[in-house]
Structures are given as structure tokens and as C-alpha cells.
């Protein structure tokens, strides 16, 4: 007995050590297998995206071009005009920036905040006299805007290096001269509208996909294997053509002289061609068509796992057909509905090409604005801030799905 006890106490730590060692080897192997992909993703995906998104909260232009001014304004209380030092600092900064050719960067950034700031900066820099007594009087003499508190507040708001200017702008908000968050003026408040429209279009498309896809998935799941395979090819067919081609095809189908209008005119149902392109209708039709497979596939795989005998059992227990569907079939397909809706909704949120090609001006989604800022006005800050919003919305949706349905968790049964 004593011997046995000794063996236990001495051998268990040794066993644990052995176990840990063998597990460590497995962990090292696993990490080694994943490492190449991880490095690849870090270099080509996570890194660049992180760098882009950081532009949404970084505000580097003004502090680097106007270092003395931003330093002088750091202690300004903002209630009255800043002290003479700040005016002098701005004059010094402007002279230096003009000769270095960096003035444009700061002027553009300040112009995002207050329209006309760019020309104010350039005309002021151009008209600065060689010798000045009072920087304050000289600047206000050149342009009375320098005597306004708001002008200086804009510089202070942009004095970075980190700021919430772009993020607030993406939500139609701004900071006033006193630093409080207020609604942006109505003519600049366009983002909330577009974000709401993005969610509305995505929601409608998701609902359409669910309504159209659910019965198809059911038929696929209940057909004998051979016919199901054939039908599945038709479902997957859209994956084999490019998104651009499919969208362009809808233009052909829906346009004024398109197939649908010719047909309806030919039959005599309508006398005037219907407006079916460059409007919301076309966006819904084209996006639903393109995203439908992403709804059908998860539904199909979940439905395939529901034994047909469940439906028979429910009927034999006295449930009429609709009750069988509502209480036995539908609840078991919920994980598929959740996965399908999530896939479709998240993809729809980021849609750009399709609304751009078949929608009108009032049907553009948030990605259109991101592309607009990134490629046309080169306003990386705005593009990044809108991207952050889109990413955050996606992550929140994923978290909700994870909470409600569970990732990859197969329901007990």
C-alpha cells in the first residue's frame, strides 16, 4: 500500500510533464503548418487593410505642415480669438510651407472642414508682406476670416495626430468651435442617408433571397439524388460567370428596349416601355439574382440533414401540414436561415458594381462613397472612416449571429 502511494505521488508530475511535452510537439507542428498562410495574410491582407483603416482616425497633415501653429493653439481656450503668438506662428509656418511646397496638403485637409479654406490659405500665403509688425492685424487685413473664431477652431480640430473628424463626418456629425459634437449642416449630411439606404437595400435583398430560396432549397433537399444534382448545377451556374457579366446581362434584360419590355409590348400588356433600369427595382432584381445561391446553399445543407421521417412522425401525431412546417421543419432550418441571411446581408452591404451599373443616383450604397473618396477625390480619411463603419456593422452582425445560432454548432439531434 505504501509503495503504491509513493509511486502515485512521484509519477503523476512526470506523467503530466510527458503529456505536456507530447502536446507541445503537436502545437508546434500545427503552428508550423499554418504559419505560411498566416504570414501571407499578414503581408497582403491584414497589413494593408489595417494601414488603410488607420487613415480614418489619423490626422497627420496639419500638425506636420503647421507645427508652430498647432503648438500655439494647444493652450488656446477657444472662447476668444487666439493670442498674437498663434498668428505669428501661422505666418512663420505659412512662409516655410510655401517655400517647401507642402501648403496644399494642410489646405486640402482644412478645406474638408470648412469650404473655402483652401483658397483662404493660398491667397493669404501669396499676399503675406515681407516685413510685418503685428501678425494679427496683417492676417485680418488680408482676409477678415482670420478674425473669426471658427477659422482657428478648424485648425485646432485638425491638429491631430489622432482625431475623430472623419469618423464623425461619416456619421453626419462634427465638432463646433467649442469642441462639442453637433449635427453637420444639412447640405453636408449625406452619409446617414446612404448608410440607411445600404441597410434597407441589403435587408430587402436578404428577404427576397430567403423567400425565393427557401422553397428551392426544400425541393433540392427532398428530390432524389440525380435530379437534385442537375438542379444544383442550375443553382451554381451564376458562380461560373463573372459578377460584371451577370450585372451587364440585367442591363440588357431590363433596359427600355430590352427583352422584358419588348415582350410585354409585343403581347400588348403595356403600351409604354416600363422604367425597369437605373432605379431601385433593378438594384433589387440584380442583387437578389446574384446573391441567391448564397442563401440556397446553407439552407440546402441544413435541410438535407433533416430526416423526412420527422415530417411523417409529426403528421402521425396529429399535426396538419402547416403545423408540421411551423413547429417541426422551420425550427430545424433556423441555423440555415441564419447562415444564409448573414452571408447574403453582409455581402449586400459591400455591394458596389451592381448598384453602380443598374441603379440610379438615389440607389448608390456606402461602397459607392468609399470608392468615390478613394479614387476620385483621394480623400483617404473619409474612405477609411466609411470602411470602418462597414466593417464594424459586419462584425456586429457576425457577433449577433454567433450569439443566436452559434458558429458551426450543430444542434443536438
Amino acid at each position, binding site marked *: 500500500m505504501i509503495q503504491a502511494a509513493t509511486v502515485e505521488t512521484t509519477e503523476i508530475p512526470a506523467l503530466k510533464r510527458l503529456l505536456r511535452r507530447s502536446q507541445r510537439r503537436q502545437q508546434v507542428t500545427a503552428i508550423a503548418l499554418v504559419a505560411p498562410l498566416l504570414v501571407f495574410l499578414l503581408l497582403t491582407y491584414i497589413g494593408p487593410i489595417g494601414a488603410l483603416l488607420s487613415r480614418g482616425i489619423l490626422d497627420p497633415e496639419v500638425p506636420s505642415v503647421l507645427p508652430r501653429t498647432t503648438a500655439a493653439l494647444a493652450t488656446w481656450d477657444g472662447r476668444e480669438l487666439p493670442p498674437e503668438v498663434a498668428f505669428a506662428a501661422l505666418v512663420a509656418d505659412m512662409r516655410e510651407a510655401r517655400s517647401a511646397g507642402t501648403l496644399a496638403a494642410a489646405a486640402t485637409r482644412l478645406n474638408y472642414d470648412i469650404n473655402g479654406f483652401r483658397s483662404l490659405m493660398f491667397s493669404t500665403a501669396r499676399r503675406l508682406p515681407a516685413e510685418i509688425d503685428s501678425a494679427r492685424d496683417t492676417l485680418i487685413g488680408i482676409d477678415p476670416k482670420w478674425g473669426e473664431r471658427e477659422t482657428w477652431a478648424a485648425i485646432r480640430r485638425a491638429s491631430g495626430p489622432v482625431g475623430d473628424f472623419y469618423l464623425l463626418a461619416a456619421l453626419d456629425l462634427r465638432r463646433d468651435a467649442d469642441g462639442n459634437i453637433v449635427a453637420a449642416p444639412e447640405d453636408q449630411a449625406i452619409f446617414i442617408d446612404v448608410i440607411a439606404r445600404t441597410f434597407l437595400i441589403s435587408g430587402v435583398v436578404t428577404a427576397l433571397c430567403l423567400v425565393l430560396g427557401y422553397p428551392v432549397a426544400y425541393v433540392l433537399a427532398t428530390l432524389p439524388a440525380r435530379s437534385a444534382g442537375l438542379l444544383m448545377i442550375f443553382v451554381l451556374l451564376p458562380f461560373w460567370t463573372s459578377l460584371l457579366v451577370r450585372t451587364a446581362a440585367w442591363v440588357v434584360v431590363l433596359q427600355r428596349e430590352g427583352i422584358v419590355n419588348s415582350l410585354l409590348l409585343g403581347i400588348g400588356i403595356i403600351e409604354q416601355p416600363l422604367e425597369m433600369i437605373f432605379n431601385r427595382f433593378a438594384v433589387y432584381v440584380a442583387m437578389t439574382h446574384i446573391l441567391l445561391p448564397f442563401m440556397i446553399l446553407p439552407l440546402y445543407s441544413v435541410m438535407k440533414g433533416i*430526416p423526412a*421521417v*420527422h415530417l*411523417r*412522425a*409529426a*403528421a*402521425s*401525431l*396529429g*399535426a*396538419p*401540414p402547416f*403545423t*408540421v412546417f411551423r*413547429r*417541426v421543419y422551420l*425550427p*430545424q432550418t433556423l441555423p440555415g436561415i441564419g447562415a444564409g441571411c448573414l452571408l447574403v446581408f453582409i455581402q449586400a452591404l459591400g455591394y458596389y458594381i451592381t448598384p453602380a451599373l443598374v441603379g440610379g443616383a438615389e440607389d448608390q450604397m456606402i461602397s459607392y462613397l468609399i470608392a468615390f473618396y478613394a479614387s476620385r477625390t483621394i480623400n483617404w480619411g473619409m474612405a477609411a472612416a466609411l470602411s470602418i463603419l462597414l466593417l464594424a456593422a459586419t462584425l456586429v452582425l457576425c457577433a449577433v449571429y454567433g450569439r443566436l445560432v452559434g458558429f458551426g454548432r450543430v*444542434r*443536438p*439531434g
Partner: protein
Amino acid sequence: MRMTPPEPDMSKLRHVLAQLRGVRKTYDGETLVVKDLDLDIFDGEFLTLLGPSGSGKTTTLMMLAGFETPTAGQIMLAGRDLARVPPHRRDIGVVFQNYALFPHMTVAENIAFPLSVRGVPRSDIAVRVARALDTVRLSGFGERRPAQLSGGQQQRVALARALVFEPKLVLMDEPLGALDKQLREEMQLEIRRLHERLGITIVYVTHDQAEALTMSDRIAVFHRGVIQQIDTPAAVYEQPRNAFVASFIGESNRLAGVVEAIDGAHCRVRLDDGTPILARPIDVGTGDATSVLLRPERITLADPSDPDGSSARNRLAAEIREVIYLGDHTRLRVSLAGRHDCAIKLPAGRRNPVPLPGMRVEAVFEAADCLAFRPE
């Protein structure tokens, strides 16, 4: 204390609960899966539909449940024609082979399902679910999910769910097929006890003849869409009506021969190797080819030097080829009448002479145990 089970009360079996008349079923319009089926199901009985796969037994069950429509014929339940009654209005409970429990509901919710779709008040449901759980000895399991139960427990839940709404008829489609042997035998007795206690009518489908013998009041033996025989387990085993029933139920040795003469209850058969034996003619006449079926446990061994033997007995020379000791009995493989794979079962403790491979003996059996059938 009674040591023997009570005789089935035949008076309660008089009343016909369900009736199938001239029922036919074809899936492809060419072959009939069920041919002209006539079947009476008595109130309160345990009727087993027994047969090999493809014999039409499950199709018959599914037509009763309403999941299949008869191609022709009529099905009546409690005086009502079921032709236009959908499954959910038939008031028939069904237990399936793979339980078919709803995985998204707890055990209690599963059992409550047939009650709640019938609009039974909530308070009544709770009482009846608790009682049903108690009946299948699963009290306290109500809040679990089906996946958390063992196969046997899941099948008991399925039973409780099919019984809780007190259906007129309960159909069971090979309900124990997925369980291992020991659990299956346990559940057979449990279902049997439930049947006796609750007085319900059960139609049970199986391909396992031992299960049919264990559980049933009556067995209907299906083959090629036709009921070959419908009788009590003892009658089906002891007095099979044809060669199929005799060979499908229980084990038997088959000896081929020709009927030479029929004399009352006995006939003389000359086996293919020339040996004459006495047998009981079932469906054969003089001059017919026949297949004589003989149960292994109805053969005893005698020493060839022992002259004793009545005229009714068949005594055939045999050679023991293999001896398998199985505890409660000993199984022999012998050469008999030119066949080398005849089986004999000797009960434990009566081994005189002690059988050994290579031993020459005489196989002794009664003419009444040799059933002469028309070959299948």
C-alpha cells in the same frame, strides 16, 4: 403465484378494429408490392407483420398510417373508410425505426407535441406528459434533449409520444432495429408489458422471427406481397401452412423427395437418396415432389445397436460431422439421407450416447414432425 402467463383472452379479440379488404399497392404500375390483401385487426391485439424485406409488410403499415395510398381496395378503422382521411386525422400512433424524435424539442416537449396540436389545455398536458414519462420509466428526463439519451431511452420517448394521445391503433415499424441485441430483448418485453397494461392495439412490423414469436398475439407472415399465414405464434411455428412459413420461422432441415403414398395423417416419402421415411402431408398429393421440413430440436440420437423403436418413428443412419457445445444445448452437424449439413439440437444433460465427430448413430424422429410441403 401463477407461474405460467395467462392465456390470451380470446373474447376481447372478437371485435374488429381495423379491416383491409382487397388492398393492392404498386409503385411502378407493373409489379404489385401488396397483392389483394385481406386482413382483420382485432381490438386490443398485438399483431406482428413478419416477413423478409420487400415482402410488403412495411408498405401495408404505411398504408394504414396514411403515408402511402392503396392502388386498390379499402381500409377501414373503427367503421370509418380511411381513403380520404389524411395521416394527421387518422388518430393512429406510429413509432419509427430511428425514433424520429424532434431534436429541437426537449423530451417533454416531444411528448407534449401530439397533445398541443390537438389543443389540449396546458395544465392537462403537463399531467399527461408526466404520466407518459412515468409509464416508460423516464421520470425526470423531461428537460433533456433527445441527443442526450441512449438509444433505448430515445425509443422509450418515441413510445411515450405515440401513446400519450391515446390513439385507437399504434403502428410500429421495426422500432428496435437500431438497438443492440441485449437492449432489444429488454425493450421487447417492455413493449409487451405496456401492451398488456394499457390494452392498446399494436401492429408491429419486423423481419426478426424471434421478436415476432416473443411479442405477438398473432403473426401475419408476409411473402411477395401476400399473407402466407396468420396465426398465433405457436400455430405458425408448429403448424406452418407452407414451406415458406416453415423455413422462415425457426430453423429447419430440408430433405427433398417424392410422395409415394398417402395414408390418412401420414404419407410415405422416398428421399432423393432412396431412403423411405414417414411424414405428415401438408399440401402435397401422391406422386408429388416434396420438400420435407424437420426441426433440429425434434431429432434425437439412438445407438444403432439398440433395437427399440415403434413403427411411427423414422430411424435413419447418420454420421456426426461436427459437435458444438452451446451450454444450454449441443448442436450437431450430421450427414443424413445423403445430405451433409443437417442440424440437430440436443438439449443439455441428455447425451446418451455422448456425441463425438465421426460417430455413426441413428437419427430418430416422429412422422408427425416431418412436414411434407410442395417445394417453394
